């Protein structure tokens, strides 16, 4: 089988599964639904691994081909939009991540959603999601990227609002959808600019014209002209900000936790939210030429990495802690992009997909055991009852905190080092943010661990007696992901980051003066050495301090948190308000839009359209009729007089 055929099957199998599970759900039943969808995604996984092996070992060259032309502008507009595949190392990496996590989530869902009435619908949605995500990453042009981009957004909306009888789920899904529209608005402007200035949407053609784009300028406000390339990159990045939940468009991600937990693991941690990171890596030939855009990416990412990390410390809902942690880690990935350490960002994306999916699925297992209780204040001491969930959750937390030798250590440490070496403007601010963020990460993730699994049980007797370990179908994905969280970092460390050439080097473009990873590579010899050198770094000790703080506050002296809340009340309230983003959005955008709507309703709709055009027409006709009927007084001789005058008038007109 050729690579192209493999890719076609990889992409289309989940779609077929989704259609069957969605439209024939009564015929195939529950068992049929999960067999077909898991089977099709499993097939995609196996083929993805095969394609990855072929491409990454160099047994097969990268593939860039158009399958068919979707639309063409003819002679008038010399544009053509194709559907096509670009199968290069970056794509296959994403393909493996997506199908791997998706497959495990499919299996996990069999246990998690067992009693849900929308069982088949759920499977249909997550398979559809897998299809859309694969379309997004395999496309060889911006239009197909945009198709997948909107597709995953749609499925995300459907799945957050999966329990559509729950008010908060509806609100969460709507919020996610609307905030994403803001990002997508920027994204589509970016795509439009690409089409206008590069004359094509194909990656290859656009990247070829990158140098001409960087010399052209565009004037947005009079008197200020920018490089076209910078403008394009920033608009495309705004799209990434919406999808990858970067500050200030991050507000939707915590709300998305209203959806079922497998979704949080698959869509809102491992795959969809990393689409923005993928896209920035994909446009590296463009963004690399614009220092302004890189700096913007760096600063936005760094801000997110630190400040959302701090928020995770005060959350009490276990899923929200992990959601804010995801925001923080997405910030790290974006920082890596801004520092031109694309490989490091993508490496973190890979390890993050494993350990964050693990944490979410572990949290889901806890929630199942606790009978859908998500508040950590009502948990505690669960480790005896759920040993396997506990161990896997611990592994996930250690990986997240970047403790060697877990996966997160390799990726996150490299990012921090790369940012330290970066010469992009804003680099020192970003370095401060990512270093402090590392300590926050340790505090919040171990806080969650201690509150959930250690200490005295804080739930009532009845719940406690019912707590039980989850079934094997749930534990299996946890164990696989835990193993991945341990070994992925070690295995991919050298090949992805420091070997010459690296795995992704053919997909990425890095200017020699930006190449911070090459700088680091001079000092790195093997993963073992990096691990042994960890105690020499500041970050490692900050992380340990963070873990100790969490231990101190939540195990040794549990009265400290309430003490802090009491004496630093202002800070606590700012954090509980999430820096006021929600209030600001509510005040400016929600109420602003509402009052603007009311204004339009009252003035343009009620007064102008209804008052002037619709009723005004009627009133004018009636006025003419009222005046006109006065002429008809019914007297014969008046009519005759008018007629004679008329004839007289006509005669005059005819003669003269």
């Amino acid at each position, binding site marked *: 089988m050729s690579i192209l055929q493999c890719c076609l099957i990889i992409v289309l199998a989940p779609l077929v599964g989704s259609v069957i599970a969605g439209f024939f759900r009564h015929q195939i039943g529950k068992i049929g639904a999960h067999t077909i969808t898991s089977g099709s995604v499993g097939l995609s996984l196996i083929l993805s691994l095969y394609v990855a092996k072929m491409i990454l070992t160099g047994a097969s060259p990268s593939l860039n081909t158009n399958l068919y032309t979707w639309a063409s502008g003819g002679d008038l507009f010399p544009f053509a939009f194709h559907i096509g595949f670009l199968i290069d190392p970056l794509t296959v990496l994403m393909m493996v991540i997506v199908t791997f996590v998706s497959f495990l989530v499919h299996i996990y869902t069999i246990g998690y959603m067992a009693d849900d009435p929308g069982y088949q619908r759920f499977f249909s949605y997550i398979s559809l999601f897998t299809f859309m995500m694969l379309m997004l990453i395999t496309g060889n042009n911006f239009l197909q990227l945009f198709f997948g981009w909107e597709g995953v957004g749609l499925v995300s909306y459907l799945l957050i609002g999966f329990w559509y009888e729950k008010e908060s789920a509806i609100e969460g899904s709507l919020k996610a959808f609307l905030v994403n529209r803001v990002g997508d608005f920027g994204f589509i402007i970016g795509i439009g600019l690409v089409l206008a200035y590069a004359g094509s949407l194909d990656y290859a053609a656009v990247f070829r014209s990158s140098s001409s784009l960087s010399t052209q300028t565009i004037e947005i406000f009079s008197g200020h002209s920018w490089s076209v390339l910078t403008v394009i990159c920033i608009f495309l990045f705004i799209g990434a900000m919406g999808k990858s939940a970067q500050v200030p468009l991050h507000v939707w991600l915590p709300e998305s936790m209203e959806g079922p937990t497998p979704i949080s693991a698959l869509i809102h941690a491992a795959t969809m939210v990393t689409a923005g990171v993928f896209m920035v890596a994909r446009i590296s030939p463009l963004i690399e030429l614009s220092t302004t855009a890189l700096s913007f990416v760096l600063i936005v990412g760094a801000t997110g990495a630190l400040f959302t990390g701090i928020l995770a410390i005060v959350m009490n809902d276990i899923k929200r802690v992990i959601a804010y942690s995801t925001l923080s880690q997405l910030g790290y990935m974006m920082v890596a992009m801004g520092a031109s350490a694309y490989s490091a960002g993508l490496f973190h994306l890979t390890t993050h997909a494993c350990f964050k999916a693990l944490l979410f699925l572990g949290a889901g297992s806890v929630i199942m055991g606790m009978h859908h209780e998500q508040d950590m204040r009502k948990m505690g001491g669960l480790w005896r009852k759920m040993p396997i969930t506990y161990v896997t959750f611990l592994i996930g937390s250690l990986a997240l905190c970047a403790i060697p030798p877990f996966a997160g250590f390799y990726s996150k440490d490299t990012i921090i080092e790369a940012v330290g070496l970066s010469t992009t403007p804003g680099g020192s601010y970003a370095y401060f943010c990512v270093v402090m963020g590392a300590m926050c990460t340790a505090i919040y993730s171990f806080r969650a661990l201690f509150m959930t699994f250690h200490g005295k049980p804080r739930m009532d007797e009845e719940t406690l007696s019912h707590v039980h370990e989850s079934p094997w179908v749930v534990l299996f994905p946890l164990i696989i992901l835990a193993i991945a969280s341990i070994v992925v970092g070690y295995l991919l460390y050298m090949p992805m980051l420091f070997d010459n050439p690296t795995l992704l080097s053919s997909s990425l473009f890095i200017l020699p003066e930006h190449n911070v990873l090459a700088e680091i590579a001079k000092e790195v010899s093997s993963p073992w050495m990096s691990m042994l050198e960890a105690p020499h770094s500041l970050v490692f000790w900050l992380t340990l301090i963070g873990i100790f703080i969490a231990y101190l506050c939540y195990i040794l002296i549990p009265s400290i948190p309430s003490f802090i809340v009491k004496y630093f009340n202002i800070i606590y309230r700012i954090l509980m308000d999430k820096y006021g983003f929600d209030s600001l959005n509510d005040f400016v955008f929600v109420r602003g839009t509402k009052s603007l709507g009311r204004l339009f309703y009252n003035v343009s709709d009620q007064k102008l359209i209804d008052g002037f055009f619709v009723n005004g027409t009627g009133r004018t006709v009636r006025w003419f009729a009222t005046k*006109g009927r006065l002429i008809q*007084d019914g007297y014969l*001789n008046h009519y005759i007089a008018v007629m004679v005058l008329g004839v007289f008038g006509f005669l005059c007109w005819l003669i003269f």
Partner: protein
Amino acid sequence: MIPTTHYLILSSILFSLSLVGIILNRRNIILLLVCIELMLLAVNTNFVAFSHYYSEITGQIFVFFILTVAAAEAAIGLAIVMLLYRNSGNIDVNKMNHLKG
């Protein structure tokens, strides 16, 4: 020999008189009918004058037609007036404004 112009002036005067009669008449509907007859006669005068002027007999034949039609019209008009009187009790033009809008 009286010039044709004089006939035309006569018929114009007759026509105008009858027109003014119709417009100014506010009382009697019979008078209205009489004025209409007078108008037809004015037209007949024109016909006869031009028939003589062009030595063409057609105009004079037309006069016979018009006289016949006028007689029929007078009969119908009077019949309507009779019915009107029977129904409303008067033939006052001032009170006949039922078509008022």
